[in-house]
C-alpha cells in the first residue's frame, strides 16, 4: 500500500503508523454530557466496509498527521490531506 503524503509524495505504508478511524472532533469537555461523548469518541467506531476516514502519521517521514480516506474493502486510498488543515 502506498500513501500519497501531501508533503512527501507517495510513500510506502511501512513509513506510516495509523491510529485507526478518525472519530473526532474531540468533544467539549465542559459539556454536560461530556462523559458520554468522550466514551463514544474514545471507544466507538463506525468501522465501515468501504471508504473510511482515518488518521495516519508519517512517522518515518515528515511527521505529519494525515487524514486519509481509504476503502477498507480494497485498501484503495481516495484522499490524503494534512490533518491540521482539515481539523475540527
Amino acid at each position: 500500500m502506498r500513501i500519497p503524503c501531501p508533503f512527501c509524495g507517495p510513500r510506502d505504508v511501512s513509513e506510516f503508523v495509523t491510529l485507526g478511524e478518525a472519530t473526532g472532533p474531540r468533544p467539549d469537555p465542559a459539556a454536560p454530557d461530556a462523559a458520554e461523548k468522550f466514551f463514544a469518541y474514545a471507544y466507538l467506531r463506525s468501522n465501515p466496509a468501504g471508504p473510511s476516514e482515518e488518521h495516519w502519521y508519517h512517522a518515518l517521514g515528515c511527521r505529519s498527521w494525515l487524514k486519509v480516506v481509504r476503502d477498507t474493502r480494497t485498501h484503495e486510498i481516495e484522499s490524503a490531506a494534512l490533518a491540521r488543515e482539515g481539523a475540527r
Partner: protein
Amino acid sequence: MSKPMRLSNGGLLDRRREITFTFDGKPYAGHPGDTLASALMANGVNLVGRSFKYHRPRGIFTAGPEEPNALVTLRNGSRREPNTKATTVELFDRLVATSQNCWPSPRLDVLSVNQLFAPLFVGGFYYKTFMWPASFWEKVYEPAIRRAAGLGMVSRLPDPDHYEHATAYCDVLVVGSGPAGLSAALAAARTGARVIICEEDFRLGGRLLSEPHEIDSMPAIDWVARVEAELTSLPEVRIFRRTSVFGVYDGGTYGALERVSDHLPQPGLHQPRQRLWQIVARRTINAMGAIERPIVFGGNDKPGVILASALRTYVNRFATAPGRKIAFFVTSDDGWLTAQDVLKAGLPIEIVVDARAHVADALTRPLSRAGVRVLLDAVVSDAHGRPGLKHIEVRKDDKILQFEVDVLAVSNGYNPQVGLTTHLGGKPVWSEECGAFVPGELPPGMQSIGAAAGDFALAACLRAGMQAGRTLASDLGFASAPAAVPRADDEPCAVSPVWYVEHRGKAFVDQQNDVTAKDVAIANREGFRAVEHLKRYTTLGMATEQGKTSSVTGQALMAHLTGRTMHQAGTTRFRPPHVPVAIGAFAGPHVGKHFKATRYCAGHDWALENGATMIEAGQWLRPRWFTKPGETDWFESVTREVKTVRAAVGICDVSSLGKIEIHGRDAGAFLDRVYVNMFSTLPVGKARYGLMLREDGIVLDDGTTARLGPEQYVMSTTTGNAGKVMQHLEFCHQVLWPELDVAMASVTEQWTQYAVAGPKSRKVLETLLGDRFDVSNEAFPFLACAEFFWGDVPVRLYRISFSGELAYEIAVPANYGDSLIRALMRAGAEFGAVPYGSEALGVLRIEKGHVSVPELNGQTTAADLGLGKMLSKKKDFIGRVLAERPALTDPDRPSLVGFKPVDPGQRLRSGAHFLAIEAAATAENDEGYMTSVTYSPHAGCWVGLGLLKHGAARIGEYVRAYDPVREGDVEVEVVSPIFVDPEGKWLHE
C-alpha cells in the same frame, strides 16, 4: 561420463562443458543449460522419490515450478534445502541432491508397505479415528503421524547465507518472457517507458525455448536473442532473470524473488543468496503463460507419465527423454505438436491416443505417415509398472488394448496462470471457449495477455504483447508509432478436456498430496463439495506447487459429481507467494544482531573502558553496572554504586530518556492540555515533574519538563515511551489543536545527559564548572534549570533527582558527550565519584518510591500510583473526563505502597501476588501484585513497591507475597513506598 538418455544432438546446452553432480550419493554429469531434472533424465534416472502418504514411486512430471513429484533435498549441511523441485534447479558444479520420503532408497522404500493400508488412508480418515483411548492421541497416534508426515528434513543449523532487500520503480512491469512478455516489453520499452521484465528461468524465451517455431522467418530462439539484445540496449529497461514475481500487493506493489546465487555451489564473497525485490509499477503486464493439465486415470502417477509440454521441453531444450517407447494420451491439438517434435527428434512413438473422435488431418498425418499408431475416440484407462511405467491399457469401443511403453505423455489443454490476478481478490472465471479458468477482475493497473489470458496461439501472443506494451505505455504518456507485429503462425490449439477416465488402479488428482479420484468422491459423499471444503478436507492443492497441476482437475471432478458447471463450482483463492519463497528472503538482512537498530549513547566507549556491563533498554544499550577490579558479581558492584551515591556521589548516563523540545507562544498552554498538572505557570528557569494520561484516563508517561525560556520547554520522557509520546504530542497539536502556536522536535539523540547524584554532587559540579556557572543552593535551588555556554558549547543543567539525593542532570550536545563524562569523572575524582548503571538507578528510585516502567504499565491510573492529587481541577487535559469513570475511581482498586519482608533475610520478587495471611491461594483472594523490588542497602533488606487493594490504609499490616511460579511465598509488611528521606530534605540541601 555416459549419459544414456541424452539425445546425440540438439538442445540449448553447452555440450563442450561437463558438470558433475551426485544424486543419492551416485555421481552423474550434465551440461551447462541443464536443470537437475533434465540432467537426471539424461542419465536415465526417472525414479526420484516417494510420495507423501502411500510412498508410491514418483518421477519427473513437469519441466517447471508446477512440479508435484520430483522433489529432492538439495545441498547438505547448513545449506540443506528440502522439497526442492528438481525441475527448477539450474545444474551447478558439485551439486548434491538426495531423494526424499524414502528409506533406504527410492527403489527399495520400506514405508511402501503403507500402500497395503491405502484403503484406510483415504481423505479425512484421521478425523474419524485415533480418538480412543483419549490419552493415546498425543502419546502414540500424533507422534507417529508427525513422523510420517512432512517431506524433507530441515537442517538444524543456522542458515549461513544472507539475503538482500531492494526496491525498484518502473512504468511497466512485464512478468514472463515468453512470446507475449517479450513483445510487450519491447513495445513498451520502445516508447521510452521504464520497463522491468522478470523471468523466473535463467534464460529468456519461455515456451520459445521448448517449441521449434519460426518468428519473422527465423528460428524462434534467434528472435528471442534479437529482442533480448534490443532490450539490453535500451537504457530504461531492466531485465531480471531467475526472478519470480510472487505476489501482488496494494498500490501497484509487487514482490519478486531474484535467485542471485542459487545456481552456484555457494554465494560468492559478500554476495547474497537471494534478493527480495519490492517493485512499484504503474502498469503491469501479466504474461506468465499457462500450465498443462494432467488427466485422471489409473496409475497416472507412475514414473514415466509426464505432461506432453514437459516432454517437449525435455526433448527440444534439454535433448533428453525419460524413455524410448513413447505413448501419447491427448485431448488437445497441442499434444499432437509435441508428438511431431518427438518424432523429429528421432524418438520412437508407439501410439497416440486422442479422446476426441475428430482431429485435423494436418495433425495426425505426419504421425500416421511415420508409422505411428493413432487411436482416436479412445482413452488410456490405466498405467502399469513397478517402479516405472511398463505398459498402458487403452480403451477403445469397450475393448481394452495393451501397449508396452515406458513414457506416456499427457496433454489435456492448459490452465492459464491466474495466480497473481487473484491476490487482490479477483476471482477467475470459467471460459467455455478456452476450456479453462481465465482471469476475472484484475488488480488495478494489470493486464493479462497471451496464454496467461487464455490466448494460446503464438501469433496471438505476439500480437497481444505488442499491443499491450504500447497501450499501457501510452496510457502513461509515452507514445510511439505502431511497430510491425512479428510474423508467426497461429498453431492449432483446440482442446476438449477429459478430466477423468474410468479406471481400475489408483488415480491421482493431486500427486504430491496423494489425493485420489476416490477421495474426491468421498468428499462429495460427506458433503465437502464447496471448492474450499474439498481443498481443506482432502488437502487437494495444498502441496508445494499449490495445486498448479491439480486444483482445476479436482474442481472439475467435483463439479461432475455434483452436476454443477465449472462456473458454478468456481475455484479456490490463490494466495501469495505464487512460488514458495524462503523465510530468510522475506526476513532480509535484519536478523541476528541486526534484528533491530542498536542505539549507542555518546558515553558508550567510555563506559566499556570502565568495566561496564551493558543491557538493552529498548533499542538502546545502557551501562547496567560497572565492575571494579576485584568485584566478583553484579550484586557487589551494584550495592557499591548505590552506597557511593548515598554517601558521596555517582554519575549515571541518562541520555536514552526521551527529550522533546517544545517551542512557541502557546507551548505552555499546550503542555497544560497534555499534562494533568499546570505548566503554563511554571517560571522560566524551573522544572516540574509532569504526568500524562491517555484519553482513556490511564497513565501514559511521566517525566520532568523544564522551561528554558518564555516560549521554550524541554520535556523528558521514559526511554521506552519516547517515540510514543512524540507521536501523541504531534497528534494533539496537528489534529486536536492546530490553532495553538507550538512546534516540537525530538532531540533525544542530539543531547547527552548525565545525572550527578549524591550529597557531594554539588562539589563535583563546582569543580567542573568553576566560575562558569553558580550551582549554589541559593542561585540554583531544587528544580532549577538553566542553559548556558561553555565556550561555544551549550550546556543544560537541571537540578532534578530520581534517586532522592541532592542531584543534577547536565546535558551537552551529543558530540561532546564523551568529553563530558571524562570531564565529570575527573572533576569527581577527589570526591570519590563513581559511575553507576541502570541497576543502581533502579535501586535508588525504588528506595525513593518513584514509579517507573513496571508501575506505568498501561493499566494504572494516577490515583493507583498515589499521584491522584496532581490532577488539576482548574483545566481540561487529555484523559480528564474518562479518568472519572466509576471503575477507574473505585476505592477497591489496588494502589501503590511499599513492602518489606517480615523476615529481613528473605528476598522479594516482582510479579508476586498479594494474599491476606490466612487466605487460601485462590483467585478470589488475590489483592494485587508486586511491581518492583530491590535489595536496599539503605534499609538493609529487600524492599518492594506494589499495588495492593486498599493499600494506603493497610500500612503496618502483614500480607503474603505469593509467587508459585518461583516457589516463593514471603510474608511482607505493608509500608510507605518511600524508604529514604520521606520528607525530601536531601533534595533541597
